[in-house]
């Protein structure tokens, strides 16, 4: 349970960055931290004690393999995270071109 709690603490560090930081770059990095924590939590949940990776090699029995389903889902999630990070960075660069700052308290003219 200690590893679950530490993983959740990593998620909460990212959440703290999202709600308390004013810098747009720091907010993007915080969203990345939250993504890491969620992916890692799913893989922690899939681990089976003294089991091996789910690849069939000579001498490997399917009874002693870790859960392959969360690994497949997290593989999808990591790739999507790259796309969303690129989109967030593009939005931040565009806002910087328009307003000349990354401070979210100064970006106020977003109405229409």
């Amino acid at each position, binding site marked *: *349970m200690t*590893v679950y*709690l*530490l993983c959740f*603490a*990593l998620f*909460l*560090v*990212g959440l*703290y*960055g999202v*709600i*308390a930081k*004013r810098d747009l770059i*720091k907010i*993007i*990095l*915080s969203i*990345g931290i939250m993504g890491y924590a969620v*992916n*890692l939590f799913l*893989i*922690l*949940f*899939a*681990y*089976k*004690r003294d089991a091996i*990776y*789910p*690849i*069939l*090699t000579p001498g490997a029995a*399917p009874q002693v*393999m*870790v*859960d*392959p*389903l969360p*690994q*497949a889902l997290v*593989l*999808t999630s*990591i*790739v*999507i*995270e*790259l*796309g*969303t990070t*690129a*989109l967030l*960075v*593009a*939005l*931040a660069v565009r806002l*910087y071109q328009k307003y000349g700052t*990354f*401070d979210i*308290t100064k970006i106020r003219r977003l109405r229409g």
Partner: protein
Amino acid sequence: MPVETWLIFTLGFMILGSIVALEIRDILSAIIAISVVGLGVSMAFLFLQAPDLAIVQFLFEIFALIILVRAFIDKKNHQFEPSSSSMVMTIVGVVAIAVIFMLSIPMFRLLPPFGEPLMSVSQHYLDFGASETGAANLVASIILDYRAYDTLGEVTVLFTAILGAFAILRTTAKHKTAGGNDE
């Protein structure tokens, strides 16, 4: 050493790296710190017997580092003057995080303990994956055969995100040609 010890060490290192990345002033240092956290995730995947994920996470980390450095390195060093509202937000944030953490501890007791997964659906994939799909790598057999529509949707989301990034970053406007045919 048991795998929990390695994981606790790696996770502590990652939490430390995240705090450094959020609190440091220099943006380049923050990006490097976040990459260290991502490589820690890759290492944790290796300890948790997920080699495919470790490779993909490593590649993701390198691409994210290139994107972030390329996008933010030439922006002028911005120093925010500390304001009273940001101090209030920091205190409120820390208190809220601590409360959420305390409230979450009973929830984590309800989960199966570490090292004993449920494996209700996955056991079928492990037992029959090789004979039904012919793939030796069972993760590949899931993403490309059992859940191929998931992968199709993933590629669609990725394509849409990259298309959106290009549309946002485009600087030249589309305008009609003289003849009126704007295709």
